[in-house]
């Protein structure tokens, strides 16, 4: 699907609103009547990418289905910072059950709606730990049955709620509390990777997409498209974590943008087993630009070993660029 760039305006293509655009070309987030599904007063850290990504995604879903939406939520930062008794930040019907069962809860919600003849739509959301690790079995089951659920993973690349421990979404070489920057190979291992969006695609479900908080229009277009479909759908949103990544709170979006522009986080969409579209890199950046502002990679900038590791990360980025065709020489975005 993707979005159609609005060209030639001073900013029209990429900003959230812009008075020069007709109302229908503005984002959901620009609307003063947006759902604010995640309301203020939540206890997310300053500059939290997940709080932002969740509001972006859920508001878009709310708009897409006219507000007839319920959500299941895995345990994690998003759940903890949004619903400490006696206050909740959610403005929509929302349930938290467990860490590893959000996809199954959503399956149950969707089954109930179907059995009751209701049109109410269902989303589920969780962090990378709840999605790629502990909830992975339930997620795969939900995909395989093609249950009518949009699952949104907010990926901040570690277990942030418990104090920044490694997850299967933690990138190689990153320092976490359980992969300290010590020894001969500091930080996280270079494993085989666990590319859940591609695994989702392999389930042949109708829609799979990746997105980031750095490109709202792309994210909203994907959520909106996902809600126009039925069956199991998966959107994987990169949401930088200032605390866990060791970045300034005001750099959350910039870092996500660099993840895309370096090629380390390919933004694509697809369905039924195939990749159908990619978000092209507008201006390719070396991985150092992405790594350098993050304290979790600080050890890479200390010695020759680090330089070699950076080269390996660059190779990963280059492989992504080649695999997804992220750079189109003819493109003018």
């Amino acid at each position, binding site marked *: 699907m993707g979005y159609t760039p609005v060209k030639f305006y001073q900013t029209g293509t990429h900003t959230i609103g812009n*008075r020069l655009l007709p109302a229908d070309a503005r984002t959901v987030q620009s609307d003063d009547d947006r759902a604010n599904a995640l309301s203020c007063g939540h206890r997310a850290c*300053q500059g939290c990418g997940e709080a932002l990504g969740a509001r972006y995604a859920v508001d878009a879903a709310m708009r897409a289905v006219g507000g007839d939406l319920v959500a299941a939520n895995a345990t994690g930062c998003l759940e903890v910072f949004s619903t400490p008794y006696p206050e909740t930040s959610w403005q929509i019907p929302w349930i938290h059950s467990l860490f590893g069962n959000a996809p199954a809860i959503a399956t149950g919600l969707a089954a109930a709606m179907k059995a009751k003849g209701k049109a109410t739509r269902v989303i589920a959301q969780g962090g990378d730990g709840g999605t790629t690790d502990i909830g992975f079995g339930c997620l795969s089951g939900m995909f395989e049955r093609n249950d009518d659920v949009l699952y949104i993973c907010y990926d901040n690349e570690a277990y942030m709620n418990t104090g920044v421990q490694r997850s299967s979404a933690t990138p190689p070489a990153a320092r976490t509390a359980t992969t300290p920057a010590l020894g001969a190979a500091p930080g996280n291992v270079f494993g085989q990777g666990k590319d859940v969006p591609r695994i989702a695609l392999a389930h042949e479900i109708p829609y799979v997409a990746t997105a980031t908080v750095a490109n709202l229009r792309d994210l909203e277009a994907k959520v909106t498209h996902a809600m126009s479909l039925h069956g199991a759908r998966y959107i994987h949103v990169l949401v930088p974590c200032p605390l866990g990544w060791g970045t300034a709170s005001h750099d959350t979006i910039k870092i996500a943008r660099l993840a895309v522009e370096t090629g380390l986080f390919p933004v694509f969409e697809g369905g039924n087993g195939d990749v159908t579209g990619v978000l092209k890199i507008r201006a390719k950046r070396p991985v150092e630009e992405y790594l350098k502002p993050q304290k979790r990679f600080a050890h890479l900038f200390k010695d020759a070993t680090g330089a070699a590791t950076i080269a390996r990360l660059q190779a990963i980025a280059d492989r992504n660029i080649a695999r997804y065709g992220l750079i189109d020489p003819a493109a003018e975005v």
Partner: protein
Amino acid sequence: MEHKPFAITLDVGSSRANHTGSWRSERPVYADHLPPCNAACPAGEDIQGWLYFAEEGRYREAFDSLTVNNPMPAVMGRVCYHPCETACNRGKLDSAVGINAVERFLGDEAIRQNWRFAKPSTQTGKRVLIVGAGPSGLSAAYHLARRGHAVTIRDAGPMPGGMMRFGIPKYRLPRDVLDAEIARILDLGVTMELNTKVDDIKAAMQGFDAAFLAIGAQLAKRAYVPAGEGARILDAVSVLRSMEGAEAPKLGRRVVVYGGGNTAIDVARTARRLGAEEALIVYRRTRDRMPAHDFEVEEAVDEGVMLKWLSTIKHMEDGKITVERMQLDDKGFPQPTGTLETLEADSLILALGQDVDLGLIKDVPGLVSERGGIDVDPGMMTKLPGLFAGGDAVPAERTVTVAMGHGKKAAANIDAWLRGQIFEQPAKHTEAAFEKLNTWYYTDAPHQVRAKLDAARRVDGFAEVVQGLDADTALFEARRCLSCGNCFECDNCYGVCPDNAIIKLGAGNRYRIDTDFCKGCGLCAAECPCGAIDMVPEQI
């Protein structure tokens, strides 16, 4: 709530009771920084201010906003050397916004639509004399008239406009455009007395509460060129002035122009249009050191004007000019080499700069500047109380735009002086540096090049060389403005706040920070495309 399970089930949105604003150590503040275009404009235009309206196609409001500072956009949109575009931050991104072209579009649109200036609601009863109907004089007249003062302009010439008429060729500034913009100023009630040379300023000021000298620099500088029999040597000022007379000057088939400024270019291009087969500019130094603007040199070359660098004229006699080759020394000054060569030429036009005719102040001591021209204080006033001066007559860069700015500044000071006050320049906002922009949000959009007349057709006559933008291209160009340092309501701050702590105040009213919830993360400031949000330490 009573019927719902205790504690585990909660009422939606109840977290609004938790005021996370207490976490904040810095707060975002909407700032209006000075955009570099505005900072660079000698006429003090609020360029971004009028582009804001032009971006929306609100041309009348754009015109009204523009003419707060400059009454002659159609002229300025043609003759200004647009330092604003040199300063434009967009130049670092792709190419500068075509501010000058949009300004001309607005000026032309105003003429087409016959937009007029609002007249002042009351008159002050004060009378101001302006000597000279050139750009600074007209500008001062406009600003004073809008403040309700009675203005009389006296000019020695037969027509108003000064150097805009007698120095700038028609192909750069069509006279109907000039006439229309002057008429619109006079329409404010300004009295114009032409063919009225002021010889004694003190005498002339009788009956006036203040006066403004805008007499320009009309005297051509002469260099001594040994000349033999039949040598035809002219000065550029006279040649260009005579273009406005009944009879065009006779320059011959081969014309040599001596000088490297814009006037040299103008006169060479004029010579081509008068039928000269060869027009050659001779300049002492190299092209990169020429004071003339690049684009004018390029246009001249397109039209067949030739240039000869590193040469001085030693001698002229009938049909021949002897030049000496020069070379630049370590400091970049040209030094003679002794090598001579001969050029064929029917006439030689000297374009070596102009001096101010100070005859009218000869009886008032202490008014002449050591740097040449009339001495003024920072408020544009001379040593003679109530007598102000500006434009080419005071030491400054000599351009129409600077003159317009002098007129505006002088008017502000005259106005204050007439009310017994001192004009205080409002403090300038900090400049909106390129580094403060978040340019990722801007789409690459190439500059809209203004169409030019074919070179072959240009030299046939004095038709305007550079064409204007149409409504579509003007809108496009206006929308290329990055709005540096000033909110243009893109909703980025409203969108990127993870705490929903930005309140939208509606179209045209921008935003407000909800300090109950703002945690001070700074994302709004970082993601503001135009750098219009500052983070300032919270007072604790």
